[in-house]
Structure formats: structure tokens, C-alpha cells
């Protein structure tokens, strides 16, 4: 953890800021959310890393997709993701966002979440333990350092691809495209 190295702060304050102030959208998307409250309470204190849940997506920069994603939840996830300010990072938590996990043959869940919103990293497990949250956070720091956590940039550049996939699931979307033709 290089939080105390003043030189790095002066050289790249935005990057260091994003690393050590990861505010999580407190949106419990699925069953995996049961592992998040232990990680922010006294035993596995996440606040010492700068990770804290916030009330609305407008104030956040980390989105944890915890657990399986049903199609109903996917709409809310996409809306929440688009409401977050940029730069923003997403981490898929559990096996379900990776490849469908336990619900690999369900009619109602999303098997590959990466087709609908960009994901920066995955944690495997059903459910991963709270320590895995910290592994995710530290790994995200390395990615941010190397400028490889660019999910939001991919969303902007390949927006037509993501929007097409979203429309394939939902048909008519209730909100206009985020990045228009202009």
C-alpha cells in the first residue's frame, strides 16, 4: 500500500485518489451481498482501505455485482451503472456473473455479465469470503496503477455493442442511449 508516498500523490493525484477512496454503491444485487456487511464491520474493517458504502450511485466509483443477475435486476444494474460518475470500476463477485455459476441453465439469469456492462475484475467463489473483497480491492489497485482498469472507457467506445446486447434482452429500453451519436 503506497498511500503514504507523497511523491506519487504529487505526480498523479487522480490515480492515487481513485485507488484509496473506493466508495461502493450499496446496491445488493443478489445473494452475495450477505458477505459485504461483515467486511465493513469491525472484524474485517474495510474502511481502513478507504472502502465505504455510499447511499446513491452518484457518489460512488465502485460497483460490486454480488451474486447472480436475473433479468429484472439487470435493468436496475444498467441504470445504476450509467448513473455513476466516471471513472468507475465494476467487480463481479461470485461465480454467477462470470459464467452463470449455479444457475448456468436457468431461463431467467444472465450467464455472461460482461456482454451488458463492462467488468474490470472477477472473484470466483460461491460466496467468496470477506477476505476476498480485500484481495479484489488490492488487485484493483494494481490494475488502476497500470491503467488497465478501463471498463468505463470500453463502455464509451463500444457502446453500440453493449446497447445492442441490452436491447436483445429487454426489447424496448425505457431510457435513451447514454452516449448519443452527437
Amino acid at each position, binding site marked *: 500500500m503506497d*498511500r503514504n508516498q507523497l511523491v506519487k500523490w504529487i505526480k498523479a*493525484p*487522480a490515480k*492515487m*485518489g*481513485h485507488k*484509496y*477512496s473506493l*466508495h461502493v454503491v450499496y446496491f445488493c444485487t443478489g445473494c452475495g451481498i450477505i458477505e459485504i456487511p461483515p467486511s465493513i*464491520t*469491525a*472484524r474485517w*474493517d474495510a*474502511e*481502513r482501505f*478507504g472502502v*465505504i458504502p*455510499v*447511499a*446513491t450511485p*452518484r*457518489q460512488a*466509483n465502485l460497483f460490486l455485482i454480488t451474486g447472480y443477475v436475473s433479468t429484472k435486476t439487470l435493468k436496475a444494474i444498467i441504470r445504476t451503472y450509467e*448513473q*455513476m*460518475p*466516471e*471513472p468507475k470500476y465494476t467487480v463481479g463477485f461470485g461465480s454467477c456473473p462470470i459464467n452463470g455459476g449455479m444457475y448456468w441453465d436457468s431461463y431467467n439469469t444472465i450467464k455472461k455479465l460482461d456482454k451488458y456492462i463492462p467488468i474490470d475484475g472477477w472473484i470466483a467463489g460461491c460466496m467468496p469470503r470477506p477476505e476476498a473483497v480485500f484481495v479484489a480491492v488490492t488487485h484493483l489497485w494494481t490494475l488502476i496503477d497500470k491503467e488497465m482498469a478501463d471498463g468505463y472507457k470500453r463502455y464509451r467506445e463500444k457502446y453500440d455493442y453493449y446497447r445492442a446486447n441490452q436491447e436483445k434482452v429487454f426489447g424496448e429500453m425505457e431510457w435513451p442511449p447514454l452516449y448519443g451519436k452527437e
Partner: protein
Amino acid sequence: MIIVQIILVPIIALVMGLLFMGLFRKMMARIQWRYGPPITQPLIDIIRMFSQKTVTHGFMFEAGLVLSLAGSIVVALFLPMGNITVFETGGLLVVLYLMLLGPLGIALSSGESGNPNSSIGISRKFLLALGYEVPMLLVLLAVMTHYNTISLAEIVRIQAYRGWSFGSFPLLLSGIAYFLILPAILGIRPFEIAGAAQEISSGPKAEYGGKFMAFSTLQHGLQEFIGLSLFVNLFLGGGDLFGLFGMYANTFLGNLLAIVVLLIKMLLVFAVGVCINAAFPRFRIEQALNYLWTWPSLFAFAGIVVIMITG
């Protein structure tokens, strides 16, 4: 010389505001048997938030927030910091009215955001303010009547040779009343009603992202600084430590020591406030109004009656 003061005083106020917020989170964490973030965490948060690109809802959304932070900085310029008061015109009355600019700016800005959670948050914030203003006005009027002046700098000067207000007999009741409503002024539990994260999804801050959230955090820190500074200046003697540093009265070292003493006093009061915050849950607004209009108002009213009788 005055340019230096105009630049330094707001910077000190902002830095101390951020320090208070960081200390708040660290102390709460330690009380809860965990390590907690570093004390500079609010600064890290602000740096991160400032580098984010977010949405805006209109002109008033931005202008209101700028007005709010500007208003709070102006109040910091009018409050005595040790022996220095950068601007003194109009006294405590001007300070009281300038303190309205902060909440009003936030109210206009978050009203424009179009989210009813913000509107509910603002209505509760104003109701809480009406709640604590009843005892607070009685306390402030008692102080002004007792010292027979409306100038805040004058009140600090008088306390330097007459002793702290909190210790003088007629003002003891008013001091107790002011201490009882201090959590409401600072917006910490049990009166954390306006910015309640869970009940109204952070109230006025619901639609603030990016640089708006950064400014809102700065304004919140500054608001706490102003609330504590007013209390310490009125009741705990401002930058004076029982006259110990009287020999350095008009020198640069004297002014510096006065500022340091003031900040230490504010930190001590704030530490007591954090302990209160750790022990209590959040009130509902009706419970808060009920409390604020009974015991503190009773003490404050008794204080003002004592002052009017003893002259």
C-alpha cells in the same frame, strides 16, 4: 497584511474542517474496535471526487453549491480566530445572517436536482434549524445582553480579562443550553437528520456526484468548523488560555499561539461530540423538535431571565 489574513484564515478553516471530518471517522472506528481510515481520508475522498465527471441538473444546481461554499468561507472570515478577526463590521448579527447562506445555497441547489429525497432532506434540515434556533437565539441574546455589545471580537476580548463565559454565573445556564444543542448545530448523531444516509438516501446529497460532492464535503467540514468556532468563541474564551500568553499580546507569536489554543479547544469539544455521536442512534425529526424545544429551551430561557434580572 490583510491580504495574508484573507488568504490564510479560510485555508486554516478548510483544513481544520477536513481534519475534523477525518478525526470523526477515525475516532468512531476506534470506539467500534476497528482501525479506521487515516485522518487524511476526507482529503483523499475530495481529490478523487474532484477528478470525476458527473451530471448537472441546471444552472441553479451549480450556482447554489458555489453560493453555499462561498457563504461558509465568508462566515469564516467574519469569525474571530484567536486575536485576529479579518472583518468585523456588524458583529454577531451579521455572522448569524451570513450563516444562513450555507444551508440556503445547498437547499436551492439540491431542490433543483429534482429528487424528492433531497426535498425531504432539506425540509427536515430547515425544521431542525428552526428547532435549535429557539434555544440558540435565547443563548446568543443572553450573551449579547450580558456583555452589552453585538461584536463577537469584543466578546472574546472581554473574556480574556473577565474569565470564560462558561464559568461566569449568569451565563452558566446559557452555556449548558448551548452545549445541549451543539450536536444539532453540528449535525452529528442523534441529530444527523438532514443527511441521513439510510432513511432518505443521503438527503440533499442524493444527486451530487463528482465535483459537486467534493464541494458539498468541503462545505460540511466548514459548517462544523463554524459551529464549533462560534461555541468556543462565545463560551470558552476563544484563543485565550486563562491569560497565560498575555505577555505575547500583540506579537506574531502571540497571534499564532492564540490560533493554536483556539483549535485545540475546538478539537476537545469535537472529541466530546464524537463520543456523543457514537452512543446515540438517529432521532426522528419530531423527537428532535420535541427535545430541542423542552430542556435546552428551558435552560436558555432561565439563563436569559437571570441575565435580565441581574442586569
